């Protein structure tokens, strides 16, 4: 069947792709962001698997609890040593879905919104790996990293890498449900709106492009 030039994708992927044709708001206040976090069996993006995904939409300075997603995945891979971090048991009582089902729900939830995560590269790669297993291309969304956004505030330049724990402490965000995907997504979302607030104060005409620009480039400018 190699004469198929164009691969045929399942409807959910088509819908996801189609969402990018919709016109997006051009002001930061009205853009839909989706802050997300994944809990995984480990840190190896090739071998490890996603155990749970939590995401919540943010528009302006508001977190939309109705517009949030929490899913738990049934995975064959199970690592006892990471259970103590995320607390997810292989045969836990939580209702679980297949990886495919979780990805469908996730794509539906994010649509064409801007993704936000703390140290986003890891979470995005984990999702992309899952997509790859489903024989699908990578995520198309623009991605913001709250770690980078913090660097842009220049509040603390002592090091490049600040963990979610350190930053939530710094910004007085209660650390409820840390190391659950939705708990971390919620904390990250609060961190995100606080960081945007700070950056806006420094630069009232803040744009998405400025937020997307990497720090290295700023260094060159």
């Amino acid at each position, binding site marked *: 069947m190699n004469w198929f030039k164009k691969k045929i994708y399942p409807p959910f992927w088509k819908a996801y792709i189609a969402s990018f044709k919709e016109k997006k708001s051009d002001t930061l206040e009205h853009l839909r962001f989706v802050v997300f976090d994944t809990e995984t069996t480990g840190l190896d993006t090739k071998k490890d698997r996603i155990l749970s995904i*939590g995401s*919540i939409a943010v528009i302006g*300075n*508001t*977190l*939309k*609890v*109705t517009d*949030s997603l*929490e899913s738990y995945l049934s995975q064959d891979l199970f690592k006892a040593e990471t259970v103590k971090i995320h607390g997810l048991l292989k045969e836990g009582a939580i209702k679980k879905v297949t990886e495919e089902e979780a990805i469908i729900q996730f794509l539906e939830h994010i649509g064409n919104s801007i993704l936000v995560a703390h140290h986003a590269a890891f979470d995005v790669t984990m999702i992309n790996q899952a997509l790859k297993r489903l024989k699908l291309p990578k995520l198309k969304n623009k991605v913001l990293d709250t770690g980078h956004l913090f660097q842009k505030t220049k509040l603390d330049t002592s090091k490049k890498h600040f963990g979610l724990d350190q930053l939530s402490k710094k910004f*007085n965000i209660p650390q*409820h*449900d840390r190391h*659950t995907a*939705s*708990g971390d*997504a*919620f904390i990250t*979302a*609060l961190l995100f*709106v*606080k960081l945007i*607030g700070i950056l806006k*104060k420094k630069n009232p005409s803040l744009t998405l492009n400025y937020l997307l620009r990497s720090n290295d480039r700023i260094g060159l400018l």
Partner: protein
Amino acid sequence: MNLIAKRISDFLKDFPPFNMLSQAQLFAISSEVEVHYFEKNTDIFTTGQTIKNQFYVVKDGAVGLFIEEKNILVDECDEGDIFGLRALMRQGNYKLSAKAIEESIVYSISSELFEEYITTNSEASTFLMSSFASNIRYTATDPEKKNQSKEHLQDFFEEQSAAYSKNPIQCAPETSIKSAALIMTNKRVGSIIITKNKKPLGIITDKDLRIKIATGSSSIEEPVTKIMSSPVITYPENITIAEAQIAMLKYRITHLCITEDGSKDSKLIGILSEHDIVVVRGNSPSALVKEVRRAKTPEQLQHIRKRAEQLLERYIKQQIPIMFATKILSAINESITQKIIDISIKEMPTVPPTSFAWLAIGSQGREEQLLLTDQDNALVFNNVKDSEYKKTKEYFLSLSKKINQKLNSIGFELCPANMMASNPAWCLSVSEWEQQFKKWITTPDQDNLMLCTIFFDFEYVYGDKNLVTILAESIFESIASHDIFLNFLGLNALKNPPPLSFFRQFLVERDGDHKDQFDVKARAMMPLVDAARLLILSKNVKAHNNTIVRYKKLMELEPQNRDVYAACSEAFKNLLYFRTQQGLLHKDSGRFIDLQTLSKADRLALKNCFKAVKEVQDLIQTRFKLSQFL
């Protein structure tokens, strides 16, 4: 279950009206909340804006509500407070502006959810309607409501849970009777429980030792199991006095074992003896008053007074209506005072040369004194011929001295400001008192106003009641002939404006021993007392001294201001309750409250009290046209 919604419901469940919803309702609301972040000084909504379809709950930080044009802070909302609801219920535009005065996280809840879950819940909607739509303040910890059905003293006495002894003395089954008796002797108890794995097996009482040992029927070397009564009768810890009495009668026993779940197979946590019940019975108010009558010495009275304190402590713990507790305690205090006066007169070389009356003044006169505080009193004696005056006054001064000292010896401390009948200034004849009142009323400087606030609340305690009536009438006559006096009294009543934004600014007493504490008497109670006195005097009513009773009377006299007075009466009850609770907790007068120790419900209640103060002060300011003076 969505974790985020779970967290939100965990927060909301502690605050009214959300604490009145079912878990399912609360969770339905929590999963549809929006979480807003506001930096310091950002607007949430502004005056004139069309209302948003939602109301707000402060999660973290603080939000100020302002009258936009004048930039006046009307209210400050902190953790758990609701705002923006009035606009939602009335529709239209926002009348106030809401601004984050600290960096804040605020939840918003849509009007649809509000209608679906809150207005359909009668308790929750009553709360909201009363706190936001009208002047009547709902009090989150309304002690009266909880015990409304318990009108009769005897009834709730029976329903009280019995106080049992914790840490009962126990021994193992293999213990010898002799060692058990030694333990009982050392611990000075009349019973010992035989336990295995902490579960009660049997009991030995003094009676068993008498019947089974002293008669020689068993040897003291045998194990306790030989003579113990078994099985024991067990109850859970919330057993009421009535239940305990019935059980003891039914089983013809004098001790009940209290276990964790009330069964024999759970852990022993206490023992309730017949004696415990007798002790509680003995502290009943009627028993105490009877004992006061029978008492012959100040020492006996002192003992009774201490038990009255225990009684009060129990009332407060059991949330018995504060008005009831106040009446009982005042009655006991009054009968103790009467007894002391009787004893003191007997110690005098002669009978009183003329008729006299003993007056309680200040908070005692208003019957608002629950805890032991200073004594405040005065004496009035009938007019006598000039030639007799000196001798008469000396007699009553020396009598008063005896009375004051005896009151002091049983725990009513001497008044540091010397507001006592043994002070020549406050031991006067009827005509001297009349002149005194007239002088205070016609020259109402700061000192005289203060004296008015203390002495106008006098209450007859002992002696010739007619003298008291004459004094009351003379006050009204003087006020009528000098009506500007009420304006001065009004100004005085406005001296302490309510600290509305109090929990954020911590408007606490900054100096002295009570740093970081809040003076609940001066800042919340006195304004209400002063307002009630002023208003009731302006109505020419003297029969009522008690602040709550005064507000109730005012509600009758001025139906148009019913809501304000009702709020004041509720507020005062709460404050009295509060102060008593704090006083018992810290073994002091309860006047200074450590804000850190307050629960959110208490803070809300306290805040509502301030709102009542503000309203009645506004009313006074308008009625007595005081703006020009301020």
